[in-house]
Structures are given as structure tokens and as C-alpha cells.
């Protein structure tokens, strides 16, 4: 038998679900102190998330997509990027965005039905939240192409879900990343579900990581509930990209512990048992155990930090709630650099209509 090609997909995990190391830690994390700020960030994100859900439940926020359970993956991705890199999120990677400078109030504003939420104070060049699944992967590929053409040492990172890895745009992104050898990292955040459709129904592929082989990319599967594995996986992909070796697909194995969004009821389609089991693998507990074992974290510290997080999030919520609605003309003023006459006439009519109320 003649063999045309062979491939191997590596799996990365350093901390097991019980918080105990299962492999030699990468050099950067032999001193666990480096993990502490990221752990605190994960706790902050979880506080933000639960308060955002509560806000929606009381009618003060529109539909909201929770990030419960994804904290290690999101924070790990955010921590692996440089400010000048470009991030292309889907719609729930707040943990990554906060690391880059996006403010919680902006997240709330967006889900609160206000475009200004996309006018980040954070990196001005990052892409906005992207509802049409995986289309952002191609925009990130375009950004990576711009970097390559301009010979800038930047990389583009896009996130999509397990469902998103079925989307043609995802395939187009990996295809072009391979064709042009782009500094692109495609992060497939496999949380088991795409609304009600389980991972198993999306594809016959054994791993989602292997999809990268279709474009000749580097492929890696990572325990997305293990912050160290996330950081190490991202480090490898980023190094590869920055040194001109092209793009990667990383599959992060995690779990969506909440409903798809606040408009969803996951009890219709998945078992309590599955969710319960997933809680035993969730990312915060295992890192807490590990850091506590390392003598770097304690219940008291956790309590103090939780309080601090609550206070900070509340400030953000208040800032959000106090943001007045945009004036009617905001509908017209950001469509073209220079609005054409008909649009200006419509703007005037809308203002007149408004005045009549």
C-alpha cells in the first residue's frame, strides 16, 4: 500500500478535572504565580455573567449569551494575544475581550440593544461581536492577510463554536489561511452544543481540530477547561503564526453550562445528568484547587475578590443603565461617511415625526 500522507492530532491537558497535574507543566507555568491574575479574571467574568443573566431576567437587558463554563478558554485566549493583534469574537467571549480592554458596560450596551456597545474603548481595530455564525473567521483571515502583506508581526485570532465549525465560512477561512499561509489562529470552542444540536450531529469527524487538515493547517486539541493547556496551545499557535509558519486550528474542549442564551431552555434537549457531569470538569474549580494547593489562593482571598468583583460589575451595570437611548438621528448618521440627500431627507422626516410625539 502506498501512503500519500499521514497526520496526527495532539491533545493537550496539564491539569485534570480534580486540579492535579497530569503532565509536566510548560516552563512558563512551573511558577504558578503567573496564573493568578488570570484566575482572578476568570472569577470576574463569572460574576459578570451571573449578574448579566439576572439583569436579563428582570427585563433590563435583551437576550444575553452566557459564557458560564468557558472562562478558561476565553481568558486564556485573551491572555495570549498582544494589543496590536486583532480579535474576531463570536458573541460570548467576554473573558477574552475584557483582557483586551473591552468594558463590561459595552457588552451590556450591545445586548441591551444599543450599537454603541460595539464602539469599544478597547483595541479600536478588533472586530465587533458577530452574530452570523463564523463569518468573523473569514474577516480575521482578511485581517491576517493584511498583516502578511504589510509585513506586520501581528496575528488574527477568531473564535467560533462547535456548531460554527460546520459553517462554510469557517472552512473558507481555514482554506485561505492555508493557501496564503496566514498568521491566523482559528479557535473552535467546542462546548458540546449548538443551541439544541449536539456536537455529534454536526459532523462525522472524530475531532474538530482535524478540520484544519483540510487546509494544511497545524491542528491541536486542547482541554479548554484547563487554563494551562489553553495558554500552551495558544502559545504554540501564536509563535507559529508570528514566525511565518502559517495558521492553526485549535479545538478547545469545554462545556456550555448555561442555556444557549437567555431566550433558550436547554432542559428541552439535554439531560440534567450531562450538565451535572460537566460541572465536575468546569475550569474554575480545578484551577482553584491547584492554586490553593500551591499556597497561592485561599477562601479568604476568594471572598474578598468576589466582593470586589461584585462591586466592579455593579458599577458597570449602573453605567449601562444610566446610558440614555441614542437619539433618533443615530439611525441615519453612521450609515455612510457622507449621507446621500434622500437619506438626509428621511432623517429630517424622522426627526419631525419624533418632535410630533
Amino acid at each position, binding site marked *: 500500500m502506498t501512503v500519500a500522507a499521514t497526520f496526527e492530532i495532539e491533545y493537550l491537558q496539564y491539569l485534570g478535572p480534580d486540579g492535579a497535574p497530569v503532565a509536566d507543566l510548560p516552563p512558563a507555568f512551573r511558577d504558578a504565580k503567573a496564573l493568578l491574575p488570570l484566575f482572578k479574571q476568570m472569577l470576574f467574568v463569572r460574576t459578570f455573567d451571573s449578574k448579566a443573566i439576572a439583569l436579563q431576567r428582570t427585563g433590563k437587558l*435583551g*437576550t444575553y449569551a452566557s459564557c458560564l463554563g468557558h472562562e478558561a478558554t476565553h481568558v486564556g485566549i485573551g491572555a495570549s494575544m498582544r494589543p496590536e493583534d486583532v480579535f474576531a469574537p463570536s*458573541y460570548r467571549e467576554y473573558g477574552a475581550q475584557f483582557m483586551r480592554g473591552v468594558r463590561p458596560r459595552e457588552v451590556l450596551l*450591545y*445586548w*441591551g*440593544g*444599543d*450599537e454603541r456597545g460595539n464602539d469599544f474603548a478597547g483595541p479600536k481595530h478588533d472586530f465587533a*461581536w458577530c*452574530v*452570523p*455564525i463564523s463569518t468573523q473567521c473569514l474577516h480575521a483571515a482578511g485581517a491576517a492577510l493584511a498583516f502578511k502583506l504589510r509585513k506586520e508581526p501581528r496575528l488574527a485570532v477568531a473564535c467560533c463554536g462547535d*456548531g*460554527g465549525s*460546520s*459553517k*462554510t465560512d469557517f472552512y473558507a477561512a481555514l482554506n485561505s489561511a492555508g493557501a496564503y499561509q496566514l498568521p491566523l489562529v482559528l479557535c473552535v470552542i467546542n462546548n458540546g452544543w*449548538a*443551541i*439544541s*444540536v449536539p456536537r455529534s*450531529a*454536526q*459532523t462525522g469527524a472524530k475531532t474538530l481540530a482535524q478540520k484544519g487538515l483540510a487546509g494544511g493547517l497545524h491542528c491541536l486539541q486542547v482541554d479548554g477547561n484547563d487554563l494551562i493547556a489553553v495558554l500552551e496551545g495558544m502559545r504554540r499557535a501564536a509563535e507559529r503564526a508570528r514566525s511565518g509558519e502559517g495558521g492553526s486550528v485549535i479545538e478547545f474542549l469545554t462545556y456550555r453550562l448555561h442555556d444557549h442564551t437567555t*431566550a*433558550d431552555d436547554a432542559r*428541552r*434537549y439535554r439531560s440534567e445528568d450531562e450538565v451535572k457531569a460537566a460541572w465536575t470538569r468546569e475550569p474554575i474549580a480545578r484551577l482553584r484547587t491547584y492554586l490553593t494547593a500551591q499556597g497561592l489562593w485561599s477562601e479568604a482571598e476568594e471572598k474578598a475578590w468576589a466582593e470586589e468583583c461584585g462591586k466592579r460589575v455593579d458599577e458597570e451595570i449602573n453605567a449601562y443603565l444610566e446610558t440614555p*437611548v*441614542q437619539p*433618533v438621528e*443615530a*439611525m*441615519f448618521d453612521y*450609515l455612510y461617511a457622507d449621507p446621500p440627500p*434622500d*437619506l438626509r431627507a*428621511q*432623517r429630517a422626516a*424622522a426627526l419631525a*415625526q*419624533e418632535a*410630533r410625539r
Partner: protein
Amino acid sequence: MNAENAPKTLAGGAPAAPAAVAPAITLIEAITQALAYEMRQDPTVLVLGEDVGVNGGVFRATAGLQQQFGPERVLDTPLDETTIAGLTVGLAAQGMKPVAESQFDGFVYPMVDHIVCHAARFRYRTRGRLTCPMVLRVPWGGGIRAPEHHSEANEAIFTNVPGLRVVMPSSPARAYGMLLAAIRDPDPVIFMEPKRIYRQYKEVVPDDGEALPLDVCYVLRDGSDVTLVTWGAQVKETLEAADRLAAEGIGAEVIDVATLKPLDFATIAESVAKTGRCVIVHEAPKTAGFGAEIAARLAEESMYDLLAPVERVTGYDTHIPLFRLEMKYLPSVERIVAAAKRTLAAG
């Protein structure tokens, strides 16, 4: 399926005679009822889309269908609209009658290629050897405080494409009857469902398998002073505007276009011949929205009947804003009433 021999007038607000057992149902329930009816009666009918299975669709349009008909008649698809459209075309060409769902209006764009290049052309391309009897269901329009891309009135993207039907019911009864007709139609139908009125009110809709005609406008209210032409969710505001006008002694005829393509212009022309005035109301942006076609036909064929310039009351030529502002975007009862009065003042 043609306009000539189809009933065109229907008492819009008048409640249908309640059947012995049939409970009143919402528009979305009427959709489910039609799907279930046709699946029982035609084994080639199947439903596919994202989350249409166990979950019953994000709007619950397919609720219970998988339980009733099994996973081989109600298929969850991988998360890709190109896939949904392409599989649907293939299924339809090979003896099935697929009813596909686009989860929201804003996700229909990746389907455009297969719809325009293939679904709309199989019969034409092969001189009738292959056909494409499919339905694409699209929850349509704004006003439900949903996130971005969930609120679009994008019917115009299909109306210049030969070979398609573009249909939009605006009541539970029409949703049931027209969906049955759409599934039975031997050609592809884009079936847009005004999601804002999915659960707005209930109507008794007997599950009798009776289709309603496509390709005809429905006259919902008679009037002799001005013709109000609309479709989809705006039927609600338009009927309300007619009520307000009536309170001022102005008789507004209200026409639900119901099938945009092919257009039953005769019904509109007949009404305008009577009233001499026409206001076209739609949610989509004004420029090159489907209202333009109706106004154009009036300019071509009803000019001598018109006593006043045609008016369009529409969404503005901008994207529907996120939900804090969306109600300022959608045409309001006030704007419709004001336009109708302008036509009366002009004449």
C-alpha cells in the same frame, strides 16, 4: 394557482365560524398545524433546519413534529445555511418535498446562491426534466427586541428572481392555508413569516387540509376613499390606521398582498380604480423595496385612476437599528394615517 379564478375577498377581522372542536390558535401554531397535516398526508414532505428537531425550532414552529414523525422526517442540520439550501435543492430534485427553515431572516443570505442559481432554475434549465418543489420558511421582520440580524425585512432580495414564489401570510388562517398551498406547489416558494405577530392573536383554524390560494391579494377591509396596500406584520398597523381613518369618516380599503411574487396586481388596480388613492406600507427600507414594484405598476397601468400621488410608508433606507430604537424605524400607525390623509388632501 392563478389569480383569475380564485376568491379574493375575505372578511379579515371577521372571526371564522368556530368548528366543533378546533381551538383558536396563533399564527405560529397554524404553521405547526399545517406542517403536521401535510406530513401526515404526504410521506415525501420532510422538515429540515437548525434546531427543528427535539427543540422544535427556536420559535417552536416544528414543536412536536420530530416526536410525531421521527428523526427521518424532521432533520436537524449542521449549522450552515448553505448546507440547508443545497441539501434542500437536492432533496427536492430527487422526489422529496422539503420544507426548510432559516432560523431567522438575517441568516437567509448564504442560501441565496442555491435559491437563485438552482431552486429557481431547475425546471427552466432542464426544460422540465428536474423540478424543485421546496419551501423555505423564513421568520421575518422586526419588532421583537431581538439581537442583530434577527429583525430583517429582506423580501426584496427574492422578488426580482424569476422562478420563485414569495409568500407572506398575515393571519393564522392564511398561515395555515397558504403554507399548505406552498408545500403542494410544484415550484419553489419562499415563505416568510412575520414573527412579530406569531403570537399576537388567535383564530379558529380548522385542521381540514384546505389550502388557500397563492398568487392572490386578500382584501381585508372594504373602503372607497383610499387603498392601503401592505403585507406581513404591517397588516396590523395598517388595519389600525384604517380604523382611525374610519373614525374620521374616511373609508380605507386594506389589501394584504400575501403573495408578493407573482403579484396579483389586478386586485390592487381594481381597488385604486375605485378609490383613486394608494398608500403602500412595508417594513423594509424604502428604496427598491417591494413597494416600489406596486407603485411602478400603478404609474404604468393606473395613472388615469390616480387622484393623488402614490405614497409609500416604509422602513427608512438604513438598517433596522438594535432594539432600543427599532420601534422608531418601523412604520407606525401615525405615519400611515398621515400619508393617507395627504393623499386625500392632494386629490
